[in-house]
């Protein structure tokens, strides 16, 4: 008897739950006096969560707090505060799409912060386009930008193409070679996932055309626990430069192994997460001279102020690359909304296309929805990760020679 009762009560409880869900879902309606609703979907769990926790979420938090601290966005009919609605996409494209649908059709948010990660930006692009949300993609690099922007009229790219990235690295290495600092032998490794395969594939002909000899070219699976064979293999090939198209956990792992193995190369490059503050904290002075993807010019007043505010408001350090870009994308959105003076998404999208924006990274404007102003390579120099190669950025730092792993 007890069992039957409990089964029934569970059933009742469950149907109650469903009813509550439905009513909650249906009860949102927008009022004119409401704050501007900003939606954000990015991973809080899953493989990309670690990166999003550094680059994406703190900047959203920072931006919303800042705007609200100064009384909201200035629109034609007065100031309006921001209200943030955030969802975890669990690093699952299906979940992401569902959450964006929910933001668009249920929460009826006014704007959505672009997703975190290349795959997610592309997966969500059709929905952004369908509902006309401007999507200022930050953490996405692709060689199909032209095709994608033609397809999705509200999609903007800010971080550069795969080829630009590889060219950045190539230029640095070629410059070092031509000035006699390194020879022409490159050891190249990549993580065998979409990102790494794409970059390695792009890099092979570019490096060869630049007269480099790729003496070691291997991939390793995502989640490899021991990267010492990779570093040992690269070392055995006696390269002058080491280039790794790597993801966060292995960026750390490769560098640790390189230090252990005392990999002596004139240029050492790891891709994503080299710019993370945690990278600097972990390795301290040992990584002086290490190259990585991205970069900033930390000397400008705006950047310094940004770093300070980031630390104060979120309790975390900004990274030395995409954090600033993410913040910039929000600044662009903010200026476009204020420029239009309304939450009219179509007008805002058009405004972004037509205008230039004054950001912490200087003036940004879009050419066919693509910004050509971004950092490609940075280098750790005395505890700061400085941009040393870029597309149209000011304040490119001089390359510092790397002297071992001390």
């Amino acid at each position, binding site marked *: 008897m007890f069992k039957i009762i409990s089964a029934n009560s569970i059933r009742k409880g469950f149907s109650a739950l469903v009813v509550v869900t439905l009513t*909650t879902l249906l009860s949102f309606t927008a009022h004119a006096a409401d704050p501007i609703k900003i939606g954000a979907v990015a991973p809080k769990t899953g493989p990309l969560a670690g990166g999003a926790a550094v680059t994406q979420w703190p900047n959203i938090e920072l931006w919303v707090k800042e705007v609200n601290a100064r009384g909201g966005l200035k629109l034609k009919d007065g100031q309006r505060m921001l209200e943030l609605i955030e969802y975890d996409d*669990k*690093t699952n494209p*299906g979940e992401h799409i569902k959450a964006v649908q929910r933001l668009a059709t249920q929460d009826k948010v006014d704007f959505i912060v672009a997703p975190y990660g*290349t*795959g997610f930006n592309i997966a969500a692009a059709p929905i952004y386009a369908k509902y006309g949300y401007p999507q200022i993609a930050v953490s996405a690099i692709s060689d199909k930008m032209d095709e994608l922007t033609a397809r999705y009229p509200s999609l903007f790219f800010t971080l550069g193409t795969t080829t630009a990235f590889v060219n950045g690295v190539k230029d640095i290495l070629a410059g070092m070679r031509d000035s006699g600092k390194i020879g022409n032998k490159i050891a190249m490794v990549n993580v065998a996932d*979409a990102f*790494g395969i794409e970059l390695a594939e792009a890099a092979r002909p570019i490096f060869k055309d630049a007269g480099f000899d790729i003496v070691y070219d291997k991939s390793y*699976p995502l989640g490899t626990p021991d990267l010492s064979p990779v570093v040992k293999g690269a070392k055995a090939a006696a390269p002058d430069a080491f280039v790794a198209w790597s993801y966060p956990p292995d960026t750390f792992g490769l560098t640790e192994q390189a230090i252990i193995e005392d990999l002596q190369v004139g240029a050492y490059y790891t891709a994503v997460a080299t710019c993370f503050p945690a990278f600097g904290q972990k390795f301290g002075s040992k990584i002086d001279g290490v190259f990585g993807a991205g970069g900033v010019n930390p000397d400008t007043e705006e950047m310094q102020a940004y770093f300070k505010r980031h630390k104060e408001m979120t309790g975390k350090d900004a990274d030395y690359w995409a954090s600033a870009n993410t913040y910039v994308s929000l600044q662009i959105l903010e200026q476009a909304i204020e420029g239009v003076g309304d939450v009219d998404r179509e007008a805002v999208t058009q405004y972004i296309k037509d205008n230039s924006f004054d950001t912490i990274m200087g003036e940004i404007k879009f050419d066919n929805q693509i910004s050509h102003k971004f950092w490609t390579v940075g280098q750790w120099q005395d505890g700061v990760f400085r941009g040393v190669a870029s597309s149209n950025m000011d304040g490119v730092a001089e390359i510092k020679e790397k002297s071992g792993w001390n």
Partner: protein
Amino acid sequence: MKSADIRALVTAVVCIVLAALVPFVFNGYWLSIALTAMMYIALSTSWALFSGPTHYISLASGAFFGVGGYLVATGMSDYNQSFWLMMFVAAIAATVLAGLIGLATLRLSGVYFVIFTLGLAEMIRNLVSWVQNNFLGSRGLYVLTDFTEAHIYWMLLTVASAVFIFGWLVERSRLGFALKIIGNDETVARHVGINTAWTKVVLFMSTGFFAALVGAIIAPRYSYIEPNLVFSPELSFLVVIMALLGGTHRLWGPLLGVIPFTLIWEAISIWIPNFTTLFLGIAFLTIVYFVPNGFVGLLEKTRGSRGVKAGS
């Protein structure tokens, strides 16, 4: 055909027609929930066709799903093939793959099978990534089509309906009867003349086929395929859990698991976006502890107890 069969058939047709109308009534968010549910209905039901009677817990759904998505992506992106051709190729490839895996592993006892299939998605992901990296090369796997969510939903509905029809046919066939016997006692099954290995392999191949189809259909929705995301161990678990939550000894059991699970999942994602995983876990444990025999079990128990009451 018995009257009960006819009634079931009519119910099924009505359900399918109603389901097909969903995109006309709901758009956007509810459609994307329906789409997710439809995907899991197809996956969990085909999973239960094999695992229900045989009690082999297969965690291979993620692997076959991944094969589907990955082949469609690489075919369309790197070789300019049509979506339809690649969908077909993917389904066949996954079926063959399931056959090989089945032949190799279905002789093993249950636990080994569970663990092997758990790692299968990882192994295939590693292998295809390696092949792609070293021999094929890729500048990103894009699946750019003009399909809308409604199109994808209808395709999934077609697959799900096919799974139900297949399941219904199997249940009435010698194959289904053989499976039932195997599930009861494999030794007896062999001694009444059932080729147990073959029977299990055939059914396992069907789960591979359907999971790859679903993966292929979902690929255009993802637009950009990362091996890391399509070969998802989490998907394998969710398929199992939804099926078990519903109940695996009825064809429509998994359906009863998928729908509430999707709704609970959604509710938690909305209410507690910062602690989704934590509360999903708690919801999960609640189900395991309080609904041990799945919703079908719960339903049959209530119905049974009512019957007893009426009789007394």
